[in-house]
């Protein structure tokens, strides 16, 4: 029993790392742009499919797809922001963005279904099925890889947001667009790049996802609820909060899975969501901003 719990805990931490990566983009859009990006998981799977293509057509390691997909997604993000999001009226941006991105998600799903058909695809690498055994606890390599990729991406992301000139101008743009223009920031460009960075995380996330789970065009629906729950629990818009919440929920899920069952484990996400709302509507780690939006 103890070893089972340990195993659940270890897996939870690793999975939580992945969740953190997947949720970080969402948190970013919201934190810096007040956009609820329902299409994020759809982009994740678009990334997964591209990885699949690179892997099957060129026979490359999935991670070698990143130099292609990351810039591609960045550009895509810039385009989505500049061409679509930027046209929304600011008064009800949060609401309208949900619907807009919902439309985008459907569009992507439809396109994936058309080009790749509805069947399952998966990318499996030899190293992805082996595992490291520490003190009787098995740590699958694919999860370890996912965890580290997630961690590195998050650290880079965070550094960019907090420290770089770009991060500063991004935040300034969100908070007061006119004032940002008046200090010399190219606000449209910056907002576009911000979105691009968010989508770039989806490219990384997609690759990792492709490696550890099979997928089909409608797979993204499953993730919306989970990721949304994570970012609310973490405090909307807080990238760090989302990361912490992701690990927390990953662990809870893992433990509940090994002790109770899968239905309850998934349910934990929503239980925590409602708990978070009742106890701290701004999220466990959220700032003051949360409940204003």
């Amino acid at each position: 029993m103890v070893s089972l719990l340990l195993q659940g805990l270890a897996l939870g931490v690793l999975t939580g790392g992945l969740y953190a990566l997947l949720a970080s983009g969402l948190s970013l859009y919201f934190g810096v742009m007040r956009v609820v990006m329902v299409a994020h998981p759809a982009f994740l799977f678009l990334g997964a499919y591209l990885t699949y293509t690179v892997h099957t057509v060129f026979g490359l390691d999935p991670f070698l797809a990143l130099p292609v997909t990351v810039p591609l997604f960045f550009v895509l993000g810039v385009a989505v922001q500049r061409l679509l999001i930027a046209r929304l009226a600011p008064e009800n941006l949060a609401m309208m963005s949900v619907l807009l991105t919902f439309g985008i998600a459907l569009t992507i799903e439809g396109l994936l279904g058309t080009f790749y058909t509805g069947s399952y695809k998966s990318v499996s690498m030899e190293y992805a099925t082996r595992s490291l055994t520490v003190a009787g606890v098995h740590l699958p390599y694919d999860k370890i890889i996912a965890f580290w990729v997630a961690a590195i991406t998050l650290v880079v992301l965070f550094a960019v947001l907090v420290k770089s000139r770009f991060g500063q101008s991004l935040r300034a743009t969100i908070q007061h667009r006119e004032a940002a223009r008046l200090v010399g920031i190219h606000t449209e460009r910056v907002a576009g790049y911000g979105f691009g960075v968010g989508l770039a995380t989806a490219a990384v996330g997609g690759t990792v996802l492709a490696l550890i789970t099979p997928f089909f065009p409608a797979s993204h629906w499953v993730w919306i609820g989970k990721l949304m729950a994570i970012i609310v629990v973490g405090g909307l818009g807080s990238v760090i909060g989302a990361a912490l919440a992701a690990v927390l929920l990953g662990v809870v899920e893992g433990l509940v899975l090994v002790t109770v069952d899968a239905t309850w484990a998934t349910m934990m996400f929503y239980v925590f969501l409602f708990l978070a709302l009742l106890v701290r509507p701004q999220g466990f780690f959220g700032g003051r901003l949360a409940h204003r939006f």
Partner: protein
Amino acid sequence: MNTVLSLEDVEAGYGRAALVLRGLTVTVRAGEVVCLVGPNGAGKSTALKVASGLLTPRSGRVLLAGQDVTGLSPQRLLGLGLSHVLQGHSVFREMTVAENVRLGGFTVRDQARLNARIETVKELFPVVAERWGSMAGLLSGGQQKQVEFARALMLEPKVVLLDEPSMGLDPRNTQVVFDQIDLMRRTGVAVLLVEQNARRALEMADVGCVLDLGRVHITGPARELAADPRLGKLYLGGAPAT
């Protein structure tokens, strides 16, 4: 004195709605404070937005230091020495005071110069120094205004547009702001000021313009305007009864 900033026969409005500015002409010279007064909704703020490039006029021209800058982006105008403090609150709420002020010098790459400016600004506005690490959005209304002011002065601008800078400021801070304006004038900066605290503003300004419905109705030396009884009744309010 040479003209630094001028709006010539500007027509402008928002979206497809009716015009707000209908043929506005205003001129500001170096070392001069021009004060725009007028009722709420007259188009004063709109005039400043046109001048700083936030809003592109539908017709007319904007000249900065003799150069036609109509339609240029605020970023470009900033480079040409123009600075604009918006009406209301425009601090970056979720950033610290420090970050706000630093962003004022966003276009400055020279760290030493930036740091020197920061010191100067901190001296001018003690609150800024005191609350250096706080989130700007948590400051009181008046404190935020001072942060904005500090931010705008980071670049040592040659032309400053101020939109109701004293709004919400307590008397002491209002004095600080007016002293600053005076200081800028003396160092040769041109100031285009919008104020509802009209009597006070006209007292210190060089030129006054009465703006209503998108046009300048009366222009003249500020002190004379202040004394104009007709104007007093319509725009400046009666002397407060005691």
